[in-house]
């Protein structure tokens, strides 16, 4: 029921002081919210970065493991090559020594290297030259030495010298 001649003034709880207070609080809350949002974003990016780094680290670790395997394999290959090289060197020296053992009067026509032995084919002027000049050093190297002769047309002797090293010793060497 309207009894008054005039209408009341509009009343509002938003007085100037309250407006100022609300503005202050709004700005403060906005700043806090923005800071919080910024920190959330940064935290998110940090987590993302961390996850990426972890994956990267894992990949690197995996690649390191693979590389270690490769290195181990290469080292083994290297060791093997060195061993082969050493063996070859030894073999080369042995062959060189072998040829050094052969005296000028004996002519080798063929040499067969076996795993645990050596078969030499050649021509010798006579059996004594062979026995004294070739068989003696061969006997000092190999454990077992077998020689066989057969004459040629010009009076010389063809020989076949078969020399073996026993297996036990070979295993020891290996």
């Amino acid at each position, binding site marked *: 029921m309207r*009894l*008054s001649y005039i209408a009341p003034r509009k*009343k509002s709880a938003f007085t100037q002081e309250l407006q100022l207070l609300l503005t202050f609080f709004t700005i403060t809350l906005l700043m806090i919210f923005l800071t919080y949002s910024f920190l959330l974003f940064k935290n998110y990016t940090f987590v993302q970065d961390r996850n990426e780094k972890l994956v990267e680290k894992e990949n690197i670790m995996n690649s390191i493991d693979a590389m270690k395997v490769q290195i181990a394999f290469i080292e083994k290959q290297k060791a093997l090559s060195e061993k082969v090289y050493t063996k070859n060197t030894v073999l080369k020296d042995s062959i060189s020594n072998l040829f050094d053992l052969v005296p000028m009067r004996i002519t080798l026509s063929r040499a067969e290297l076996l795993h645990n032995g050596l078969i030499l084919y050649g021509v010798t002027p006579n059996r004594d030259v062979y026995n004294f000049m070739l068989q003696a050093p061969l006997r000092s190297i190999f454990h077992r030495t077998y020689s066989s002769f057969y004459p040629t047309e010009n009076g010389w002797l063809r020989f076949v010298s078969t020399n073996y090293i026993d297996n036990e010793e070979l295993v020891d060497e290996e």
Partner: protein
Amino acid sequence: MLDNFFESLYSKVLVNIVVKRASTTIYIETCSKSTVLNSAEESFDSILLNEEMVSFVKSFTKETPFFYISILDMSDDQGAIPTCDKNRLEHYYDIHSSEYKCYDKKWTYHTSKTDLYAIEKVYKKIGVDYIFSPFSMLANFFKDKIETTMAMYILIQDSFISLSVFDEGRLLYGEHLDMQTTGESDDEMLSQDISDDLDIQSSINLEDIDVIDDMEALDDFGDIEDLDSLEEIDEFSENKDIEEEFYEAEEPVIESNENSFNEDYQRYSLIHTALGHYYDDEKYESQFIESVYIADGVGVSTDLKRYLEEEMFLSVYVRQLNIPMEVAQLTKMELGL
């Protein structure tokens, strides 16, 4: 929505201003919903707003943005009209320069627009939210009687009398009387009436009366038995508002002194004159008034009641009214508290 929420958090301060003859009473209520938390009343020796009043009002209104300043209209140029029909308002009063409101779609109260602007201008420093008419206050105060009883209802203020006649909620007559402006002229009129009554030239000379002729004329009173019986007259005289008398008996009786005697006589004169207007003016639907209900806002003495009862043969009932509190009541009604 948000405003309503904030409004429920704040208490409301109702500032009620009543301007008297030489002072201003400010009654302040602090309410939370319908509960009165605090109230204060102060009188100031000025009829215009001064710094003292402003600081008194602001000491309460600074607590909440929901404060309402209400003033009882003290305009001379106000009244009540027994219709709400805009076409018929002109028949009773020239309302072009008036602000008017329809009460309950039954009757209209009005006041001068200039006076409303003047009030708003005077109270510009604190602002005004509501300006109430004494007639709406009267109608609200006697709400229980107006709807059921045919009577004259009078609001007595310090320097104004608001007089209205209601017949079961229907306004028959309303007039606002200013004791300061009309008092002297009425006094003159009354003294003139007295001198007229004492005019020897026009008085009746008993010697000139022809007794025989008059006795013949008295024969017409043979039908006197058709009139109301004596018992019915007794019943008529006993047609009293017992409830109101009981209510009245509980209130303290104010003894008259010389000053109050003069004022009460002046009030009586104004009421007497206004009642004469009501009966004489053909614009108004005249009905015989038996009872008068007075809302006493100033503390009238028993003289006024006695005058009205003895001189005008009215049944008079007086209810004490705290005008500032009643203004607060109207403000609460406006706010729906």
